[in-house]
């Protein structure tokens, strides 16, 4: 059985992962130990640069305790800060350098083989997509910056979409199905009538941001920089296989995901790997985490890139503390039964929702407001 623990500034509660119900009789040694570890590691906050160091502090604590064969470290602080704050050029350089310094600290203190992926740089927003001629509002989320969906479409929307500026690609639900007949029924059911992809740097979501003015937006990256001491991936979907083969050879592997870091900021020697499957370019964030954790293309996930917020809100009964998914991926690197796995970092929710590692430690934040530290202990191997 899997349990989660929430540590809100030292106040701790343990809950059943699937139901969210309190666990009365905790018979979970690993969780008991995690409850001793987290109070010393309070999360500094989404826009606090110290959260970069926190990721490594937590990763080292989990490595010391559990000695995982696979560990993912997710650094989102740079992206979050650059979206929400106007940085000086010096501050911008400093946050990126801090990340590489901390990654180096982790690699020097441990014996992991590394796969470090720059998930993409940041840029000024080039413009906002004008959606005023559509019959209803587009749905977009912070999980997919260049994507939006039109649900409840009406007859003339097809023509409007054809003529909308800065739309790089648009596909109807039926065309999507025809192209990917193997997708799950639930995936098809959740697809919007039209899925739209904007041109690089153009954003959709102006009305859903509670008035927060974004300062930057992620670049659309057709290729990503990657540094590794392992076999070199040519494509993001090859990452999982390479890490698994290395573990088969008895190596310990660390997958290090750097949000907000593109080629211009990448401080280690790197090669480029593909970040696109057919027309779909993995946006910085969720789809990239799913790509590396599952090794599968976007149409084989449990959710499409954009879901109707109503569907999403209606499916929250299972795994209620997982912020995005109520169906979790079954086949991930973190679920590998013969290896110990862990995932830590500052990207709330995505870390456990994509890896499903034995131990996940992440911040628990919503809308930049920090609610503590989230720990998942998920079917661990004997310590």
């Amino acid at each position, binding site marked *: 059985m899997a349990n989660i623990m929430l540590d*809100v500034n030292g*106040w701790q509660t343990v809950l059943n992962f699937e139901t969210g119900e309190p666990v009365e009789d905790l018979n979970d040694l690993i969780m008991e130990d995690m409850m001793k570890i987290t109070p010393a590691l309070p999360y500094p906050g989404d826009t606090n640069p110290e959260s970069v160091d926190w990721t490594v502090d937590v990763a080292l604590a989990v490595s010391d305790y559990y000695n995982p064969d696979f560990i993912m470290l997710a650094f989102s602080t740079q992206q979050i800060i650059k979206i929400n704050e106007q940085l000086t050029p010096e501050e911008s350089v400093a946050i990126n350098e801090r990340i590489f310094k901390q990654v180096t600290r982790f690699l020097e203190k441990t014996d992991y083989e590394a796969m470090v992926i720059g998930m993409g740089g940041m840029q000024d927003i080039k413009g906002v997509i004008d959606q005023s001629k559509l019959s209803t509002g587009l749905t977009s989320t912070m999980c997919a910056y260049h994507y939006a969906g039109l649900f*409840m479409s009406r007859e003339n929307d097809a023509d409007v979409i054809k003529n909308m500026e800065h739309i790089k690609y648009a596909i109807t639900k039926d065309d999507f199905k025809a192209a990917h007949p193997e997708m799950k029924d639930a995936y098809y059911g959740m697809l919007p009538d039209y899925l739209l992809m904007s041109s690089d740097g153009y954003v959709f979501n102006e*009305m859903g941001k509670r*008035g927060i*003015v974004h300062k930057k937006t992620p670049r659309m990256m057709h290729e990503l920089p990657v540094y590794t001491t392992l076999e070199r991936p040519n494509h993001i979907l090859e990452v999982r296989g390479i890490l698994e083969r290395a573990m088969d050879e008895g190596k310990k592997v660390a997958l290090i995901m750097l949000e907000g870091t593109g080629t211009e900021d990448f401080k280690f020697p790197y090669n480029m790997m593909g970040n696109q499957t057919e027309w779909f370019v993995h946006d910085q964030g969720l789809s990239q985490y799913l790509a590396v954790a599952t090794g599968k293309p976007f149409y084989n996930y449990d959710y499409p890139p954009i879901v109707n*917020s109503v569907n999403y809100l209606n499916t929250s009964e299972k795994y*209620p*503390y997982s912020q995005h998914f109520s169906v979790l991926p079954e086949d991930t690197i973190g679920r590998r039964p013969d290896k110990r796995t862990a995932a830590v970092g500052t990207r709330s929710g995505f870390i456990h929702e994509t890896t499903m590692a034995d131990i996940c430690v992440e911040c*628990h934040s919503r809308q930049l407001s920090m609610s503590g530290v989230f720990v998942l202990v998920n079917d661990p191997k004997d310590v």
Partner: protein
Amino acid sequence: MNCNYCEWRCDLSKGNGICGRYIVSNGIIAEKEPMSWISYYFYRIEEMPFFHALPGAIVMQIGTKGCNASCDYCVNAHIAIKEEPGQTLKPITGKHLVQLAIDGGAGAVVFAINEVTVFLPSAIEAARAAHEAGLKVGCLTNGYLTEESANMLGNEMDFINISLKSISDEFYQKNLGLPSVKPILRNIKALSKLAHIEVLTPIVHEITHDEVLKIAYFIADVDENIPWHLFRLQPTYKRVDENPLDIGAMIKIVEQAKKILPFIYFGNFAGSQWVNTRCPGCGHVLVKRVCIGSCGSKFGSIDMDGNRCPKCGKNIPVIR
């Protein structure tokens, strides 16, 4: 010429009022940007929070910018208090808003995000359009309205969440920039007769054990069935460097206050076990919720027989 929407009663002939959202136009007080909105999005009603109105309903949350108070722990300071460059409102008519709400699956429109008093005429216009289409309408307010405005609001809204941040004038003056709590206390009484109301109190360090109990007694005196939300605030805005509040100590106070008010909730932190609605008669869990923190309580399930507890038959004040 004075604006009479809130108790500041600003003289607008001398320029901007405190909130900056009204002007004198053709001899009348008018909104600077009528029917213009900063944001709309869809949430479960529990996130507003409303716990005794339409449990589990999807609502369209909508708002503008500006406020007539200046709380030093405002969680929406980027809209309410600070003018951010590039922050623009978008004109959307009442009819179009309602269509967007229905397309989004909403059963209600809720004016939240910022203080409804600073866009009251637009809120009323949109509320009427929503009611005409069969949607329910609610809002959040700090309660610092004039009697006339409170009356208008109460007549147009189905449910209202009023923030009562303290019971003392001194707290209001020091931390919110408002001269007195008295108009708010007056309006809670008045609004409770016109609409379904819930009360919310953000808990910060200055709110003592005694004060929590005093607020509970005040609410109970108005109507003991009013749901009361105690919100544990994570230090924010001007208080960002403060130590976070001790949840364990608050729990003890909440348990004591429960003896005064039957429907008391303590949340805004992940994992709270004080967000379910229990029958005050037999303790049966009527509405299950999970608290994911940062205003997020998720609806789980409801076990009620109409408006009655299925176990003991007690009448429970919940708008279904």
